[in-house]
């Protein structure tokens, strides 16, 4: 079977547990996201052939690179890959131009220099061809690494946390450059990162990994707003994760009624969970509105709740707020507000307030395993 893009399925119990499956179409950017030790770099190494998993199959652009069932394992130099390492791994004794030329083994020797110059120009490094890596800044080194990776006309571009070693302003510039560059690229791009914002910004699809397992794949917004499980919800940084019961569905009104510790919340219709089912649910930070009760129009699925401000933590221009929700069994809700809004509402620890819980933004998930309550506290 011929694949256009990259298809991967690998599994191994040890030494690095892996149980992953994903695909990436040509021209698409797939972000592998997970905490450190989640196996995302190992998967990249599997694609490159630097790591051979116990079992699996990896195919790219119609070629099979790994098929443990058939005992096939194409060695790294014969896989057409472009790999940008986290540390860039430039050849320290060679100039930028020579670094790129080493990736041009397939080009006739006479054409290598001009091709390497063109690649360096593509990553905005024209004029710096003769510098060795130690005379280039972090951002410039990253660009050389990208040019070198592209030199082989790779069938897949692998980026291992390529932005982690540069300062913030350089990183933002490089984001823009990568976004521009990817429009010119025709191959699948796999980006490994632990930064959700980076993944959401740069990737078409995102794949959440934990302990070597792919938990959920999909467009970044969908994964961030509609996590398939409590584990994914935690990994994407959702703080408000609770247990509740589905009370009823009203397809006509497009509403599901959710019972939560003695309260009834109208939320967006989610019929996948039958009435009576115990579920877990998440409320993103923007699902909690600290507007005065009379301010703005109230949506049909908004619920007014009473609560007390438990704590205010200032983080730069944002304030992280913990609320204790009353009117039923108490529960803690987290949200953030900009600093000046917090000041305008004269929020203070211990103050009682009324706020709105936007049912539109509540997302149901299967109940977390066991009797353990999936409380996000």
């Amino acid at each position, binding site marked *: 079977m011929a694949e256009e893009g990259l298809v991967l399925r690998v599994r191994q119990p040890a030494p690095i547990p892996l149980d992953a499956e994903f695909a990436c179409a040509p021209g698409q950017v797939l972000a592998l996201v997970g905490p450190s030790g989640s196996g995302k770099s190992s998967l990249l190494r599997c694609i*490159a052939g*630097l790591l051979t998993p116990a079992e699996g199959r990896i195919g790219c652009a119609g070629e099979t690179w790994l098929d443990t069932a058939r005992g096939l394992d194409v*060695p*790294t*130099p*014969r896989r*057409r*890959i*472009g*790999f940008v*390492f986290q*540390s860039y*791994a*430039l*050849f*320290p*004794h060679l100039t930028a131009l020579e670094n790129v030329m*080493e*990736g041009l*083994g*397939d080009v006739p020797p006479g054409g290598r220099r001009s091709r390497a110059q063109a690649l360096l120009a593509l990553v905005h490094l024209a004029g710096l061809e003769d510098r*060795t*890596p*130690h*005379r*280039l800044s972090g951002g410039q*080194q990253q660009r050389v690494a990208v040019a*070198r*990776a592209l*030199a*082989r006309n790779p069938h897949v571009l692998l980026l291992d946390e390529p932005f982690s070693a540069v300062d913030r302003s350089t990183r933002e510039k490089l984001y823009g450059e990568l976004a521009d560059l990817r429009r010119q690229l025709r191959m699948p791009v796999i980006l490994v990162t632990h930064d959700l914002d980076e993944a959401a910004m740069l990737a078409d699809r995102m794949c959440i990994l934990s302990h070597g397992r792919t938990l959920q794949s999909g467009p970044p917004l969908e994964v961030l707003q509609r996590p398939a499980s409590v584990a994914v919800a935690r990994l994407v940084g959702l703080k408000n994760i609770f247990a509740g019961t589905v009370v009823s569905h009203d397809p006509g009104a497009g509403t599901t009624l959710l019972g939560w510790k003695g309260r009834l919340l109208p939320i967006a219709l989610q019929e996948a969970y039958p009435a009576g089912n115990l579920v877990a649910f998440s409320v993103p930070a923007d699902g909690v509105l600290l507007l005065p009760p009379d301010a703005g129009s109230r949506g049909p699925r908004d619920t007014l709740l009473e609560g007390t401000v438990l704590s205010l933590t200032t983080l730069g221009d944002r304030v992280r707020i913990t609320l204790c929700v009353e009117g039923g069994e108490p529960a803690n809700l987290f949200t953030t507000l900009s600093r000046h809004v917090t000041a305008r509402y004269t929020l203070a620890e211990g103050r009682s307030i009324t706020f709105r819980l936007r049912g539109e933004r509540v997302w149901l998930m299967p109940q977390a395993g066991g009797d353990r309550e999936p409380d996000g506290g």
Partner: protein
Amino acid sequence: MDVPALFLSLRLAAWTMAILLPVGIWAGRRLAWRRFRGQSLVEGLLALPLVLPPTVLGHYLLTAFGGATPLGRLYEAVIGRPLVFTFEGLLLASVIVNLPFAVQPTQRAFEAIPSEVREAARCCGMSDWRIFRRIELPLAWPGILSALVLTFAHTLGEFGVVLMVGGNIPGETRTVAIAIYDRVQAFDTQAAGLMAATLLLVSLITIAASYSTADSPGRRRG
């Protein structure tokens, strides 16, 4: 001034260096990157000449090379003359004595090459031979060079093992270090002093050359 002895020393040092260059690169590279069972024992054996008194080492080599052992007999049967008290026997002893000087700096040099750099080379589609020639060798070169220089200088200065295995045969096994001892024994302090100064100068130049390689561009990493 015993000029033949000086040339014999230089010839011995050059041959020792020539033999240990490929041996040092092969063994150093292997020890740097591949872990195997008994590696500590191998590394210990390689370092042994550093700590053993030269007379002890010389005694064992003399016994091993002698006509009473299979090695000595085989050599005599094939070449037609004994191994002990010949230049070839001296060279073999010199190679063994200098193993740690040749292997250890080379091993450290290969160890210092980040594994990601070698992986990046493979990802660039480079063949193993090209990676060795274009990446590993230039990066490890300062270490290899200092191994060669150490070997050369140490061979010039070796005394105990040379005396035990080679004896003191003019033109065959009498090195400059032996010649100095010989001259001192004969109260010819002027000749001894001249040769000692020559040896000092040659050793100083080679060691200084070794240190200057530490500054080469391949050594500096950004």
